[in-house]
């Protein structure tokens, strides 16, 4: 019996079919999958020595301690520093991905003059010439987002040498002025729109004390803070001051409305209590509560230097405006800034890591290092009852052509000192005073300033200096300012603008691409172009859920996508980051 061609084909075909019923093909597939796991196009993490380095976050005024896990010198993840007096071991979502900011697309990479790249020397010469050309009536102003830093001292010194220099701050840069909040001893917080549980002061400190205080949120929108408050009092937009006055009356036993009476009862039952956010009526309420200068309330600290608010600078008075924008800072109100400039004859210089924001309106853009790219400083943490200071050492290598804002101003002033020199002087002054304690991040221990031989070295390794507390009393000439809360009474709706525009959330800060992705996919943050309305309000305006529409207010119009949400106050339109105003909405 011979072996024919047909037998060969039958055997081959039968073997192939039989093989399909064995684990072999599946193992082959699995092995192929293993091989393809390291496809050349798939980025692979770098490997190297794992080290821990420390810094301080400068993305907001909270001044949180940062522990960076690094491969070699490069941070791969950030976390809080356990026991840190301000942050209590916590970083906010933006801080957790602070090391990604340097890789954002819209960052400024080289100096620009009227949109064209120039050498830093030419930019410097141009700005110097513009400052020299300013007459006595034209002021030179520096907008300082964080007054109280060593950099602020550089700005003040430079401006003092000019005929008309103005050191000013954006609205709400110093929400509590010379006071901090003794949160550890507060038993009740009456908040007028302040985002107490959503990024207020140092989030770690607030949340660590959350179980110790009752929280009453007075706000028209059902915000994240409102959803977690012990009591949410929904009020009409713009009526917060009226409600504060009603609570003040109820505190004195006068008859008031039901909500105000209940709030007053809670405040009296949980003393010491404070009121935050809002306007003048809230300051009066704090006086009634006896919360100023007492434990559990607003306590003064030593380091406050008053600074002019940009709103109080006369309109059309600034000839040259230098704007420092920090990474992660709140967007600056360009409409307000523009009103302060001399029309057609002013020069705007943006000292910024970003190409958007004020850089879009600037004659000169001086690119600043991004967070963690250069040695920086964190002044007293927001709301702290004691003065503080820490360094923020660089963890990333900065690209060339970047100039720290303080360094640029030093060069304008023909000062040979560098920004690190100024920081060294600040640390030396703390050491000389010998007051207070230093908390060092690596060992989470506190020591007296005078017991630390090399304070500069300790601070470069990760540390925060804290002044001695004043405990009580007042600071001469420094009245209690109140936090930026809701604006004053809104204009009433009119037939033309039958609805009220209110802010839903703060606009998202610059952040890692990861943040925008995760928030978009989870739906935790509303898109900037979303207008959320109550379903009944929407239908009354002839809209459907998901429709495209135009919102019009006295200050302009903008396109939105409508979202129906029964949680929104009827008659209101919630839009991210919008000021309270009468408005209308119609289908696009």
């Amino acid at each position: 019996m011979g072996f024919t061609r047909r037998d060969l084909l039958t055997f081959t075909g039968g073997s192939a079919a039989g093989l399909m019923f064995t684990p072999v093909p599946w193992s082959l597939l699995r092995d192929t999958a293993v091989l393809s796991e390291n496809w050349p196009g798939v980025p692979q993490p770098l490997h190297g020595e794992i080290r821990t380095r420390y810094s301080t976050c400068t993305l907001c005024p909270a001044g949180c301690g940062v522990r960076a896990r690094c491969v070699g010198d490069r941070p791969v993840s950030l976390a809080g520093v356990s026991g840190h007096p301000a942050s209590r071991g916590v970083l906010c979502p933006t801080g957790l991905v602070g090391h990604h900011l340097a890789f954002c697309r819209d960052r400024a990479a080289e100096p620009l003059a009227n949109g064209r790249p120039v050498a830093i020397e030419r930019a410097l010469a141009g700005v110097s010439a513009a400052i020299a050309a300013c007459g006595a009536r034209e002021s030179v102003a520096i907008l300082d987002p964080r007054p109280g830093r060593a950099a602020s001292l550089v700005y003040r010194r430079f401006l003092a040498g000019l005929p008309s220099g103005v050191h000013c701050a954006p609205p709400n840069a110093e929400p509590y002025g010379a006071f901090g909040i003794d949160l550890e001893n507060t038993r009740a917080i009456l908040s007028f729109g302040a985002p107490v549980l959503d990024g207020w002061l140092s989030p770690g400190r607030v949340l660590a004390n959350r179980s110790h205080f009752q929280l009453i949120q007075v706000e028209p929108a059902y915000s994240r803070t409102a959803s977690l408050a012990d009591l949410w009092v929904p009020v009409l937009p713009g009526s917060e001051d009226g409600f504060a006055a009603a609570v003040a009356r109820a505190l004195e036993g006068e008859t008031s409305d039901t909500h105000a009476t209940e709030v007053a009862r809670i405040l009296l039952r949980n003393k010491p209590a404070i009121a935050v956010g809002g306007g003048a009526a809230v300051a009066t309420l704090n006086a009634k509560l006896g919360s100023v200068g007492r434990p559990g309330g607003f306590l003064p600290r030593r380091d406050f230097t008053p600074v002019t608010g940009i709103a109080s600078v006369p309109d059309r008075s600034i000839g040259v405006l230098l704007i420092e924008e920090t990474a992660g800072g709140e967007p600056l109100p360009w409409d307000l800034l523009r009103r302060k400039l001399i029309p057609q004859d002013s020069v705007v210089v943006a000292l910024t890591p970003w190409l958007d924001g004020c850089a879009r309106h600037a004659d000169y853009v001086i690119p600043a290092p991004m967070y963690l790219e250069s040695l920086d400083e964190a002044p007293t943490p927001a709301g702290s009852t004691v003065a503080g200071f820490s360094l923020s050492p660089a963890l990333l290598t900065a690209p060339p052509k970047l100039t720290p804002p303080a360094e640029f101003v030093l060069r304008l002033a023909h000062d040979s000192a560098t920004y690190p020199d100024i920081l060294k002087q600040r640390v030396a002054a703390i050491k000389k005073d010998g007051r207070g304690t230093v908390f060092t991040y690596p060992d989470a221990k506190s020591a007296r300033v005078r017991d630390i031989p090399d304070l500069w070295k300790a601070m470069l390794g990760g540390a925060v200096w804290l002044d001695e507390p004043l405990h009580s009393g007042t600071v001469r000439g420094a009245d209690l300012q109140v936090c930026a809360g809701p604006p004053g009474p809104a204009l009433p709706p009119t037939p033309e603008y039958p609805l009220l525009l209110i802010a839903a959330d703060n606009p998202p800060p610059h952040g890692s691409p990861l943040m925008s992705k995760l928030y978009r996919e989870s739906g935790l943050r509303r898109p900037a172009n979303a207008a959320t309305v109550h379903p009944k309000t929407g239908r009354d305006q002839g809209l459907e859920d998901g429709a495209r529409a135009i919102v019009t207010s006295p200050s302009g119009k903008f396109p939105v996508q409508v979202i129906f949400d029964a949680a929104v106050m009827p008659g209101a339109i919630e839009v991210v980051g919008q000021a309270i105003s009468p408005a209308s909405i119609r289908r696009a």
Partner: protein
Amino acid sequence: MTAITPKPARYGMAIDLDRCTGCGACMIACAVENNVPPARPEATPRTGITWMRVYQISNGASFPDTRAAFIPILCQQCGKDTPCAAVCPQEAVETDPATGIVDQMPQRCLGCRYCMAACPYHARYFNWWDPQWPAGMEKTLNPDVATRMRGVVEKCNFCHGRLHTARARAAAGGRRELHPGEYVPACVEACPAAAIVFGDLDDPASEVARLARDGQSFRLLEKLGTEPKIYYRTARPWVRQAAAQQRPASEPPERRLRAGLPAPQGSGQKEPAHA
């Protein structure tokens, strides 16, 4: 050289929904730790990858009686008849008997997505695209976690890289037991409200075991009998009822309202005081 066998444990979580502020720090920390790439512009909530996703849920009532809560959803680490493991033709899903952790091995995954269809919690994600990071950002990837390629499924594994690191550290010290707190996933470490407690459910002395036994604790879709190891806690009855729905909806709120979530308990605005 003597190998040190780790002491068996059954790791689990207790998440306090009354503490969760919905800040999303857990999602961010998870994505950084596990090298989850930024989304492509065309990605949607269904096609994006988020091992841990925080949803906002509502009681469905209208203003001013509306109430909301935040609920982080991650792989529930089913302890019995794990649905995804049962359907995987590639044995790419495995429950580690030493830890109870349900692990996904992307190296074995063929991308059939049976596991995604089987998962009652929708906590598995498919790589629709090759992972990409903005130029330079790939240098910030965690060296302890491999990136995954297009065409495979991935999910939460309680930060397995951290478990290995902790074990290596313990073994270097001659220990076979991990100290409490020596191994915690990134989300637990990052939560600013300390809403997530992690530990060994089989250790009666552990905080997570105590919380799991607490009367306020419940598990998602308990009726399926998959014995998840993620416990949620709340004192608010409506949150418990809303969380029992098939999946906390990420749909527009009015549709959530139409879904017929329970009415609020009482008409007062007072929520239970924070513990």
